[in-house]
């Protein structure tokens, strides 16, 4: 996916603060405040204190899933991008097939394939049941982590491929002319330059990953979405829990975007 598409899919910039107090905006904000007041006043929110602890745990679980799968996925995306640019053809083919398959099927299906498919296959092998991994394989979160990691790696791998290919060849030639070994060239020049080029898309990809995390609730990982589902089943409320959930995700996205903007401003760029 190209950069503009990611921007169209995921919020990557907060609305600017400039001229927030135009007359029509004040009217709009007054209307918005009235709507919020009506929502708070006329809808039922008495369940919130009872569930606040569990909601906090759920948000924590969502964030853990987001952070672990984004980091693991990025680490996996680097070799996937690299072999597509310079690798021998079997590895290149493998990486391309991996990206096509993961990006061509819904994440929900991949998640269910891993959880129900592999999860029903593993117990049939006594070697797996007796191994030290078995206590983890009986849980649901490893399948969620694997599915989300693979998905992030496939999407970001495509970005990394473009980033590796886009590093000017003169820089690599200069490094080689200095007598650096291929690995040193990679470590000192190619990887840092490629990561730098891929950084602008990272905000969007991470927000997209945040938007993908609630899917793990369908395989019984207790994230914030699962907690809200429990609330809905216990209290028979339709809208209130969902509105709170949307608000929580809105805040998480805003925090992510602001955080990434801050880190991006710390990285020196030429001419900026």
């Amino acid at each position: 996916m190209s950069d503009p598409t990611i921007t169209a899919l995921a919020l990557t910039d907060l609305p600017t603060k400039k001229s927030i107090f135009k007359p029509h905006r004040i009217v709009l904000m007054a209307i918005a405040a009235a709507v919020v007041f009506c929502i708070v006043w006329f809808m039922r929110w008495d369940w919130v204190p009872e569930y606040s602890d569990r909601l906090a745990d759920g948000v924590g679980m969502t964030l853990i899933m987001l952070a672990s799968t984004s980091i693991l996925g990025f680490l996996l995306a680097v070799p996937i991008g690299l072999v597509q640019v310079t690798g021998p053809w079997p590895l290149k083919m493998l990486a391309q097939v991996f990206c096509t398959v993961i990006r061509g099927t819904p994440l929900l299906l991949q998640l269910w394939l891993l959880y129900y498919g592999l999860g029903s296959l593993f117990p049939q092998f006594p070697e797996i049941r007796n191994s030290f991994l078995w206590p983890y394989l009986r849980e649901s979160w490893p399948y969620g982590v694997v599915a989300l990691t693979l998905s992030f790696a496939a999407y970001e791998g495509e970005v990394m491929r473009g980033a590796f290919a886009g590093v000017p060849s003169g820089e690599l030639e200069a490094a080689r002319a200095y007598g650096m070994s291929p690995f040193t060239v990679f470590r000192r020049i190619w990887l840092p330059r490629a990561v730098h080029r891929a950084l602008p898309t990272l905000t969007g990809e991470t927000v997209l990953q945040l938007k993908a995390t609630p899917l793990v609730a369908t395989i019984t990982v207790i994230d914030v979405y699962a907690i809200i589902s429990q609330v809905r089943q216990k209290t028979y409320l339709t809208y209130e829990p969902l509105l709170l959930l949307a608000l929580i995700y809105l805040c998480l996205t805003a925090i992510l975007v602001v955080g990434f903007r801050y880190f991006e401003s710390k990285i020196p760029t030429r001419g900026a």
Partner: protein
Amino acid sequence: MADAGSLINWSLLALEPPGWGGVMLAGLWQSLQIAVGGYALGLILGTGGAMGKLYGGPVTKDLLEVYTTLVRAVPELVLILILYYAGTDVLNQLSALVGFGPVDISGLAAGIFVIGVVQGAYSTEVLRGAIKAVPAGQMEAARAYGMSPFQVMRRITLPAMLPHAIPGLSNLWLIATKDTALLAVVGFSELTLVTRQAAGSTKAYLLFFCAAGVLYLMITLVSNVLIGFIERHYRRGMARAA
């Protein structure tokens, strides 16, 4: 004990009722209908939204900004749940107000509505970027010829922005096909949910989920070929992208 032969029972995929192949193809048909309908609705909303965001008044611009910001910041799954319940609820209350009593909304219509509203925000952003890429001089020239705003739109802006919009719009189509899987969570029997039911009742989870994956992959690959044709057609006469 588990060996390859006993794990794969191909007769489960047969088209006739003891097999589940026919049911899965029906689910695929439902998914495709929702994807096409939702994508088309999204394009209509997106064209209007992009126009409003670029040429609308200040209030229109702000409201559209709120719409696209909310949709891009909240997970599709949550949006689908909210829109699904809110949409059917509002429609029922409206029809009760008019005096028709509660209406039975088909899952297909609800699915198309939900996917369409989500896609609408995405295509608003894609189309807005594409329209901004059209040189302003071309539109000014059209206006100087005395064309009405609608004629400028039809003759100049839309054809000139299409080459810029097609990569983004084709990505949105692929996303629309995959987002239909999320409707499984609200219990609409599209391909993913049908697959899960088939897998659950036969216990052949791997077989069915892989088969569904192949079907989704086919949609993507066929779409990619068609997109290639369309892109070549609309980029003809343009300088190759750097």
